[in-house]
């Protein structure tokens, strides 16, 4: 059935949005078109009811607004079915079992730490004995205080760069002749000792002491 061209004017007429010639044209039309009049009567009942009772009819609309304030997750939870709740419970149980049941089994070994050359065990100290001040001649020995049993010491002698290094388990070490020959009067030198455990772990580093071989002696 073909739609009457005036049907679209019904709402505008009922809402008093038609004026002048358009209004008169539409009114004349519905006096002649029983279909439009019937549609308009029905629509008028709807419009009149909404206008008269709109406050009551749409009173729940603000409730829909309040609903927006409810967090989305609460709404989602409220809409969960028993099956979904069972799935959530099962997933939570699996996670808890993994965290408290399985992961602790992989934590049996204590962590291993390896000290680098510049790291020491806090609390140990290595004291240098001689030479710690200027000396009259090229020193024949370098001596330091004992740190413990089975400790290996490594001595480092520097001028502007590393001049000599050697390892020993004693607390003193003789300077080789070739090194002595490189040490000249008036020149400043420094030395340092590092102590290592039997496993090769650095356990102490001495301070770096500077000395000078006096001239003319």
């Amino acid at each position, binding site marked *: 059935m073909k739609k009457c061209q005036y049907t679209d004017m019904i709402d505008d007429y009922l809402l008093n949005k038609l004026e002048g010639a358009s209004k008169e044209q539409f009114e004349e039309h519905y*006096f002649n*078109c029983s279909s439009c009049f019937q549609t308009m009567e029905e*629509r008028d009942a*709807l419009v009149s*009811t909404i206008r008269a009772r709109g406050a009551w*009819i749409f009173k729940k609309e603000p409730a829909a607004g309040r609903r927006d304030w409810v967090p989305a997750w609460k709404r989602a939870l409220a809409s969960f079915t028993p099956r979904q709740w069972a799935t959530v419970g099962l997933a939570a149980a699996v996670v808890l079992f993994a965290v408290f049941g399985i992961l602790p089994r992989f934590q049996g070994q204590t962590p291993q730490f390896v000290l680098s050359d510049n790291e020491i065990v806090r609390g140990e100290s290595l004291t240098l004995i001689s030479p710690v001040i200027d000396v009259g001649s090229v020193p024949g020995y370098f001596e330091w205080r004992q740190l413990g049993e089975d400790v290996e010491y490594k001595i480092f002698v520097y001028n502007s760069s590393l001049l000599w290094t050697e390892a020993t388990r004693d607390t003193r070490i003789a300077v080789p002749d070739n090194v002595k020959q490189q040490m000249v009067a008036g020149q400043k030198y420094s030395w340092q000792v590092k102590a290592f455990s039997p496993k090769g772990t650095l356990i102490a580093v001495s301070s770096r002491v500077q000395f000078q071989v006096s001239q003319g002696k």
Partner: protein
Amino acid sequence: MEQASAQVDLDEIVVKYRPVVSFKVKKSLGVQTPDWEDVVNEIITQVIEKVTKGEFRGESSIGTYIYTITSRRIVDHIRQKTKVLRGIPEPKPLPDPCESAESRERARVLAEAIQQLKPKFKEVLNLYFYQELSRDEVAERLGISPRRVSERINYAQKLLRKMIKP
């Protein structure tokens, strides 16, 4: 002329056009106007008299003829009331208690049916008929096309028709 008037069924004028005339009168004068029914009766009587006297020549449709008479009578009534009742307080409307109760019940049923519609239909009815936004404004508010607004209103009407069907 006599031939033209003879073709009009007087019963049809009463049965078919009385509701149409009533609608137009109520719309023009306001449903609260106490004597709108008197105006309708006068119009129907006038139409019957004119048709009977052969004044309806069939130059237009009977619907257009009745519409013209109705419009003139309404204008006359408004002029008359304005002249006579100027300065005199308007009497309180005296609605027919039976019709009022019946229409109230119909409105209640319809209102409850509207409440049961889905939110998308209620929203469009609210914005368009209650808040009286334009079709374009409603469309913009709801993020749909104006044509879609009309479709939703018509579909809501269709649903309501089914819901309140006795």
